[in-house]
């Protein structure tokens, strides 16, 4: 084909493997470090030192990096609390910096998205914040869990 195709959407400057490598080597200002690995399903799994109990799952689309922190499933709620939980989450979500709260299937998640060409330092920073947010959000609704 000799024609010039319309401008393609950006490709990830570094792929998930490279992102994992850089995260593993990273040290934040407050001493934050990461443990990162790419799973067989090609999902980047990251544990942040400020919260290593709730890892972040990272994937990409043609335009974005998506970072998902699974929180808990609807089955882990004390029966009868889902309405209250949903309302708390709705009210809470806008106040959480950089992350949003959502429901995927029956799993509540915290998630963030960044442009594919985000600088690495900003990616690391967002992940740090997301891990921190996870603790805060869970503490806020802990009392509603079974």
């Amino acid at each position, binding site marked *: 084909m000799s024609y010039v195709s319309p401008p393609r959407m950006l490709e990830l400057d570094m792929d998930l493997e490279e992102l994992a490598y850089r995260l593993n080597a990273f040290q934040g200002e407050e001493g934050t470090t990461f443990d990162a690995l790419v799973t067989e399903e090609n999902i980047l*799994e990251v544990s942040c030192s400020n919260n*290593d109990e709730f890892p972040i799952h990272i994937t990409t689309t043609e335009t974005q990096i998506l970072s998902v922190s699974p929180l808990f*499933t609807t089955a*882990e709620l004390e029966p009868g609390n889902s309405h209250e939980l949903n309302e708390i989450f709705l009210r809470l979500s806008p106040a959480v910096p950089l992350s949003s709260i959502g429901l*995927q299937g029956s*799993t509540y998640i915290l998630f963030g998205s960044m442009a594919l060409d985000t600088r690495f330092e900003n990616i690391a920073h967002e992940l740090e914040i997301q891990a921190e947010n996870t603790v805060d959000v869970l503490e806020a609704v*802990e009392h509603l869990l079974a």
Partner: protein
Amino acid sequence: MGVLKDLFAAVKGGANEVGEAIIDANAIRILEQEIRDAENAINSSKQSLTRMKSTDIRLKREIHALSEDVKDYEEKAIAALEAEEESLAVEVAERIAEIESEHNEKSAEQAALESEIDKIHKMIKAREHTIQKNKRELDKVRTVKELQRATESVSSNFAATGTSQHRVAKALERVKSKQQNWQDRMEAGDWMSEADANSDLDAKLKAKGIGNSETGGASDVLARLKAKKGG
């Protein structure tokens, strides 16, 4: 096709699992195919456009040449009339009429061509819009799919995906105690470096003989004794 509309409909219908049911492989295949089709159509349109443009240029040149011819012959016809060469003038006039007719034909052809070219430009633009729109739809579809994948991926950290009792509470406890340890170590580190700094300071003062209780104490005592002795 509106991905979000479909999603909303599914949620409204009480679907707990918004996954393969909504974003089926077909949706992605259809979008990708539409994008490919549009790109191919644009490609062949651009090739036609190139051919049309060169015809357009040729026609414009020919029309211009014909106009020049008419002007030329008109001058000659006038000259013939002035030279009272009536029959010649008539011949020239006939010739002019022929050229003008050809000129009109070609002008009409060129005008039609120009309108075709314009139509194709508009169509290419419309197709490009379609491509961009489909790409955005596709990205939405992919985002939904990737979010689902990322959520359901089984963590290598079992604490995160087990379903034991009070899983979250226990995990939070562990996180907080780790943070506390870290903080304690930080504070201990601060205290240590503070203690170091204090002993540094004392050493400095001592070196200058300031507030040195030993020598100060003895000489004070001597002074007192002398004073006693004196008085």
